[in-house]
């Protein structure tokens, strides 16, 4: 039994290492998480402020004694994810530069041409490029 458990753990670990997964969530999912985790608190304490310009986050902070800590944590987690995804989107083509030169020579930027090409070649593009596209939410 013990051997089996170790084997399973090793297999899972191997699976994690071999499969790349996005380290960011979509902007839609980010909004959904805030709504799910903080919706009741926002309706109760922050119904007079909008989400833009950090007003809701600031309001939740002002009521932190009454707001579940999971809400604040989730809010900050998705805010970090949004920042990371924006950063990934901004830098994706730079990270993929070598793959673009190798697999997409002559493909012009615009209308997602380069992205289409990289996705077509996704089995062979570099690991860092693959990860950048995943984190950008484009794969």
């Amino acid at each position, binding site marked *: 039994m013990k051997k089996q458990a170790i084997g399973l753990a090793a297999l899972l670990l191997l699976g994690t290492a071999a499969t790349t997964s996005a380290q960011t969530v979509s902007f839609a999912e980010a*909004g959904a998480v805030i709504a799910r985790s903080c919706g009741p608190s926002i309706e109760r304490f922050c119904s007079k402020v909008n*989400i*833009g310009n950090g007003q809701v986050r600031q309001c939740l902070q002002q009521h932190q004694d009454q707001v579940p800590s999971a809400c604040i944590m989730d809010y900050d987690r998705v805010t970090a994810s*949004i*920042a990371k995804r924006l950063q990934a989107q901004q830098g994706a083509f730079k990270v993929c530069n070598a793959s673009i030169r190798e697999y997409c020579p002559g493909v012009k930027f615009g209308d997602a041409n380069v*992205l*289409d090409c990289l996705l077509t070649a996704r089995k062979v593009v570099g690991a860092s490029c693959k990860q950048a596209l995943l984190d950008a939410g484009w794969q």
Partner: protein
Amino acid sequence: MRQTTRLAARLARGAAVAAVLACPLTLEARAQTNLNNAQILQGLTQATDDEPAITARILRQMAQQAVANNVPLTTDKSTIAQKLDNLAQITVQIQFALNSAIIRPESYATIGSIADALHHPILVGYRFLVVGNTDATGSRKHNLELSQQRADAIVEALATVYGVAPARLEAAGLGQEALQTPNDPTNPVNRRVQIFNIGRQ
């Protein structure tokens, strides 16, 4: 998503006119349901090669003049309305607090979906017009102001929460001046937000 991207790109490049003509009809039919990311991306992608010069300022002026002169906004006849109809567009419902421009949490994900599309490489070089509409409950003047505030709130959320460059976004409120169901003006279906692709940056 990838297939949608390719489809959208093909439509944008190859069959722009047909796609643009077909797009408002198909998406209008779904206007009051939740669009998924692929539908948003597809709806906003099919830009024509000669996007008309539509700006929020022009739309606002038209609506304000119509309300001030107590005449209908002739969106069905005006050239600008015809041009608007021909733009790649989507219609979504955003939930606001009653009589206010406060976006309710249940709509944060919808605005996030719009941001997902606007950040996609196929749309990243384009500008967008966010248009707010109300139903005909209340005064025209109040509805005009409220819809402008609501459109502004959406633009603010897109820019400051989801990092869409403010230079790519414009906001206009049309109040009750462009009803989706003119024969049923108080129908809640008229409370809607339209996003138009208004051309390259």
